[in-house]
């Protein structure tokens, strides 16, 4: 498979560095060769498209142009970047006039046909659930997780490739394949208020609080997200939110690739769990330990059963012998 262009995006450089690292490690261990887009720049995020459509599409298209130098495919792990890039892909490829308009304000024109992938879609299509399910070495069956898609991985379906905006499934499937215990809940796609986390806290706090309490309601050990902004709001701002709302949530928030990585046998350290403000390490280690116990218990039971069976057979043989003896006499 030709190398895929990798677009980290601004958040993954610093605030979401663990998402970046875990993603790269997982990609590498799955034998996917990728190359970071040369001289990539910000996709414009919501501020751009809330301000000026042409600006938004041009900023995104510039990155498509850079990606085209690597190949026909672009992987953008950050859903915010993904949607901006995908949006540009769709409009620019479909509308020649608009492409011209965009090219007009860029230094060099974009002539390519780059297809943009979201992380979950990429893993599902390129690796495949069946293959992925064979790989895990660490047993996560005791880790109860609720997949949180947020807005950008669920809406609109035309961009996300999901079949349904209310019940997206890709993350569920990937997590299940990674061996985790996926819990159904009502809040997969409710907005966390990401885009206004900084300027309009009150919105973000109200929304994020609901998500945290719903996750608790569902009895989850951790929320799994695949978006730096959701993560920022749910993890980094959790204390802030507790103070503001007078709640006492303590809900770890993991990145999708961190869970997959853990399943693939990478350590808590390698997956950079220590980067989180709500440290997921205890939960994860407890789950792994519990899984071990459960397995041991199961094995013990199996042995006992085997033992019983053996004894029973033994007894039968004895009786049979005795019978024969009687008959002879």
């Amino acid at each position, binding site marked *: 498979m030709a190398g895929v262009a990798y677009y980290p995006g601004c958040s993954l450089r610093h605030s979401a560095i663990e998402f970046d690292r875990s993603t790269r490690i997982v990609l590498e261990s799955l034998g996917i060769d990728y190359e970071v887009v040369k001289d990539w720049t910000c996709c414009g995020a919501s501020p751009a498209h809330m301000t000026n459509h042409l600006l938004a599409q041009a900023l995104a298209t510039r990155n498509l142009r850079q990606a085209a130098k690597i190949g026909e495919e672009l992987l953008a792990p950050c859903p915010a970047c993904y949607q901006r890039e995908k949006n540009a892909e769709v409009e620019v490829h479909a509308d020649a006039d608009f492409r011209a308009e965009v090219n007009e304000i860029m230094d060099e024109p974009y002539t390519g046909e780059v297809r943009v992938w979201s992380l979950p879609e990429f893993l599902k299509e390129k690796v495949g659930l069946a293959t992925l399910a064979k790989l895990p070495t660490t047993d996560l069956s005791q880790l109860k997780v609720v997949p949180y898609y947020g807005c950008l991985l669920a809406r609109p379906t035309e961009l996300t490739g999901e079949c349904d905006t209310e019940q997206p499934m890709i993350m569920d499937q990937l997590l299940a394949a990674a061996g985790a215990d996926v819990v*159904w809940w009502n809040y997969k796609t409710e907005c966390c208020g990401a885009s206004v986390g900084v300027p309009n806290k009150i919105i973000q706090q109200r929304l994020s609080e609901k998500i945290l309490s719903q996750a608790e*309601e569902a009895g989850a050990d951790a929320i799994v997200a695949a978006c730096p902004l959701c993560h920022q709001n749910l993890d980094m701002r959790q204390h802030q939110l507790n103070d503001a709302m007078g709640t006492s949530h303590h809900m770890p928030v993991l990145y999708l690739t961190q869970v997959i990585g853990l399943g693939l046998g990478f350590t808590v350290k390698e997956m950079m769990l220590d980067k989180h403000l709500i440290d997921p390490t205890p939960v994860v280690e407890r789950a792994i330990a519990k899984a071990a116990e459960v397995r041991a218990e199961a094995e013990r039971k199996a042995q006992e059963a085997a033992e019983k069976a053996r004894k029973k057979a033994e007894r039968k043989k004895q009786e049979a012998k005795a019978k024969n003896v009687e008959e002879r006499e």
Partner: protein
Amino acid sequence: MRIGVFVCHCGTNIAATVDSEGIAARAGELKGVVHTEDIIYTCSEPGQQAIQQAIREKNLDRVVVAACSPHMHEVTFRRTVEGAGLNPYLFEMANIREHCSWIHADKPEGSEKAYDLIKMAVAKVRDLEPLYANEVEVNKDVLVIGGGVAGIQTALDLAEAGLKVTVVEKETTIGGTMAQLDKTFPTIDCSACILTPRMVDCAQHENIEIMAYSEVDRVQGYVGNFTVDIRKKASMVDWDKCIGCELCQQKCPAKAPDAFNEGIATTKAIYIPFPQAVPKRAAIQVDYCRWFQEGKCRVCERVCPADAIDYEQQDEYMQKEFGAIVVATGQDVFPWEEYYHEYGSGRIPDVISGLQYERMLNASGPTHGHVVRPSTMGQKDVEPEEPKTVVFIQCIGSRDESVGRPYCSNVCCMYTAKQAILTKDHVGMETEVYVFYIDIRAFGKGYEEFVKRAQTEFGVKYVRGRVSKLYEERGKVKVRGMDTLLGKQVEIDADLVVLASGITAADGASELAQRLNISYDQYGFFKESHPKLRPLETNTAGIFLAGACQAPKDIPTTVAQASGTAAKVLGLLAKDKLKTSPMIARVDQSRCVSCWKCIEVCPFGAPEKEELRDGSYKSHIIETVCQGCGICVATCPVNCIDLKGFGTQSVLDQIEEVLLT
């Protein structure tokens, strides 16, 4: 040849974009046209008289009327010319309204096109010849497909009038959806009390044969003479022996989903849907029967006092003859779980459909009429809990393009009002009852008053707005909605949420339509022949519609339509012989090469090998069997078959005439 051309104004319907007077005048130049005339309303009495008068005075031998669609008035004008002593098949219509004046704005354009259409009609009428209808014997038995209230009503009306009726019902009992209901709006009288006596009447009527648990596999023939293949599905119970004592059901150890109770309760693998079932006979759901699944059990066989159980039973196939068919296959409830994921996709136990709630309200239902929260039902050491707050949401699968149902389901507003009232009545006036609605459709007799009662007398709170999401929190169902009149979001902690699921076409409706050769709309509802003038007939002569299979309907409308349909059937079968259309195929035997291709392709078996005096065999069309589709005409390699009324020459001449410059 003396052709008369009559151009209609249809008030301004045509005249607004077509210069009827002008083109009438121009039509005089056409070959064979000896009389032209423009008339304000040609279909009116003076209009028709004008035609007849012209035929007599100018002794016309061909007539063209340029007006609306032949589907509208061809029959009318055939009668008109016949009235003036002209053969009705020497007449042709030019459709200058639906196909011209109504789709064009520019008058010169409209007039030009209308004139072309008249040219074509004139060209065709030149090729026409007098035709004479044949007569066929009529079979007076009637098939009614579907044993719901519509089918029951039609069957009883027909049987009372002395016709033999066969009712084919796919379930093990007749009664349909109405049998599931508790009460009916706007009178709140008991559904069973009205329906079950009628069901019994059906069963006991000497002229009615009920074939329950059966399906229509194939329909052949034509009006007056249909041949229908019916399959009686294997119930694994000999119904001649079964006495409906329910002993098997009591003793059967295998649980099975209870379709009649909409899945809110379970029944047994061998079951009788409900106590008043007609016929009251047991059937085995083999998918859940231990004997069929695990090869052991046979309890029912042991306990059956009539020894009616027959594990080897197979489907029975039979063929019957009918003169007319009434389709009354009803509707299904919209499967909201598959579409409304924001409402929990059916994973939230206390969110149920209207029909499920109806079963709960029903005294013969799983809770014997007690309203309880499903989440507290049928569990050990959990006391079933009555809801204190009940929320109804309307327009579920209605008026909702996002789920492909833009139409209004017609009954939900009213059944919601009814259920809201019954909730107050069953659980107590102190219960909080909310109804989220977009618009209230209370169009029927006494309906608006009924909704008003719900609001005033029973204090049901109507909230104008829709609900965006349902989710569980601390044992309640959170209802996140909007009160558009306040302009405020509302959140309600509900104990029970009832979704007013709309009406969707019955499962397999389109397949049945194809078997019957009747048309259906994009939602799967069967299409009437004309929405206003022929609402009970289909496009296929001899096949009629009754009830919700045609469009969402409530009980009063359904029953009214069902009786109307019965009247239509009686009208048809009152005659001993039926005139058949003479516009059928004809073989020129002198050119037939006996290749029998016509016999191969005919869907009706109209062509036959006829022995001539010289002992040779030539193709011959059985006139009463031919339906006039013309497939054989287009197939015959030597063009020795032609279609009367749609002759090959007439088709070519229309094309040539209109393209002529």
